[in-house]
């Protein structure tokens, strides 16, 4: 299985060919983003005199800087909140065998099935009545609650597999529950926290529907909404649009390439047990 034979070479060639087909859209994306709008040659021909003017223009006209900051704030704050409250809730839910514990767990797991489209419209009304429409804090609040079921589920599953010896020893030593959580449980949760962090951050950062609803008509935008607005404004000025698309995905891709191993493992999660 580990020998490199001529069949392995053939497979290697085939897989590289498949990867080239997969990468073709990305080639066109970059190729057109660096092309002057006056250059009307075929989109698949390599751009002969690349330029960065599309990027500067897209950055200035698309309000992408503000959107980037908003996306960072919304993602960082909401993911931090959801990790804290979910890990805290998971501790008794994983440990207690009482009826209330089982009931609360099932109630929260109900959230895994409910599609957010069901809650989105009534919540829209509440957010409006609270005067939070058009504020990024409405999004922070939304994601902090929306991601609770999935994150709690990850933590409870992980905690149940952890031995109780350390926390019991700590309790016998006179440790309060909050101290035991902070100094005993939390450090042991690190692997699943990385998984939860990655999955939550990607889904919050990429979400489009919610900010489309809650921020529409305001000057506040997140990256996906800013991109959609940009496309609406510059309709078929694709060189400019592609520059904006690239700007919007570069932060995500940079993080991905830097942390590829933990990110891929995070997504593959669970299976490793």
């Amino acid at each position, binding site marked *: 299985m580990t020998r490199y034979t001529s069949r*392995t070479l053939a497979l290697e060639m085939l897989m590289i060919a498949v990867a080239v087909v997969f990468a073709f*859209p990305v080639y066109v994306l970059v190729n057109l983003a660096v092309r002057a709008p006056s250059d009307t040659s075929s989109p698949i021909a390599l751009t002969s005199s690349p330029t960065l003017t599309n990027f500067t223009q897209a950055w200035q006209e698309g309000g992408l800087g503000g959107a980037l900051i908003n996306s960072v704030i919304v993602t960082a704050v909401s993911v931090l909140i959801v990790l804290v409250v979910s890990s805290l809730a998971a501790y008794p839910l994983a440990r207690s065998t009482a009826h209330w514990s089982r009931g609360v767990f099932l109630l929260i797991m109900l959230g895994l099935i409910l599609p957010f489209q069901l809650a989105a419209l009534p919540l829209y009304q*509440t957010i409006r009545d609270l005067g939070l429409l058009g504020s990024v804090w409405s999004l922070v609040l939304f994601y902090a609650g929306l991601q609770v079921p999935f994150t709690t589920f990850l933590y409870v599953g992980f905690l149940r597999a952890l031995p109780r010896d350390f926390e019991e020893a700590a309790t016998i030593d006179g440790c309060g*529950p909050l101290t035991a959580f902070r100094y005993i449980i939390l450090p042991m949760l690190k692997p699943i926290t990385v998984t939860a962090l990655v999955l939550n951050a990607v889904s919050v950062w990429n979400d*489009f529907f919610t900010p489309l609803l809650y921020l529409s008509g305001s000057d506040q935008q997140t990256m996906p909404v800013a991109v959609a607005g940009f496309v609406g404004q510059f309709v078929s000025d694709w060189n400019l649009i592609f520059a904006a698309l690239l700007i919007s995905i570069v932060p*995500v891709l940079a993080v991905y390439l830097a942390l590829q191993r933990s990110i891929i493992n995070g997504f593959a999660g669970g299976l490793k047990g």
Partner: protein
Amino acid sequence: MTTDLQQRRSRRAAAAAPPRRRGHAAPPWWFTVPALLLFAFVVLVPSARGVYYAFTDWDGLSTDFAFIGLDNFRAMTDDPDALQAIWHTLLVAVAITVIQNGIGLLLALGVNTAIKSRNVLRVLLFAPAVVTPIVTAYLWRYLLGWDGAVNSLLGGVGLGSLRQDWLGDPDLALWMVVLVVVWQFAGYSMVIFVAGLQSIPKEIYEAAAIDGSGPVRRFWSIVRPLLAPAITINLMLSIIGGIKLFDQVYALTGGGPGHATDTISTLIYKDAFTLGEFGYSIALAVVLTAIVAIASAGQYAVLNRNEKAAS
């Protein structure tokens, strides 16, 4: 979702562990309060109100609305757009699930070999999965346009007669939505399959090879059953993602041409925010919820069966 397995494994481990003194060191119940409050405010209460509004003629603004029973649901059966959207939702979810997992599995089998580029390929093929779906959809809207790169490519290789407006043809547009989702998430399925493949002990595989079974036989009789957890997780993720599909349709076609690519989610958005029919829109969300619940229950049943068969 992904750690269902862990959970069950740990439950098994817990069953084997010696009994504990009851109540000892049980963490206090109030640890769950912050999470519960957020969850109730954002998900539980609005969802319950949503179910109630589905039986009213609420317009989203006034506090003055009437209970109209099943009228919204009855109206749906007379609304060709709604029926079509429900059909599209099911079709797209099934098509994405089958194609994405088929390609993902083939990629995983290809990458999980001795080829030198396996790590680079894995990183490259998974990359689209972390990119914002709305961005990939806009990219593809250009690629599939009349002046786009796909038509240029076809012209370039002498298949100019196949050139067409891929997103403008009502018969093709829905399949283009499927194509874009599969392009983006096939690498995601692949990564989960690779993790599953790597958990299969090499010895089992080698023993089968020594026994003289061919690659197809080895895959079907050995790899497939041991891959069951990965298969289930992949099916679950792609079918539920497919049912809720919104961003890609919104950016690629906006539900058009006509209503040719409308899904339940895009119709919910249009009915609520362009037509102001909140009650009807929420009734559609209730239908969506029912479909997700049925799909989840089905998956759960299969998961349990597989788990029993594997143990």
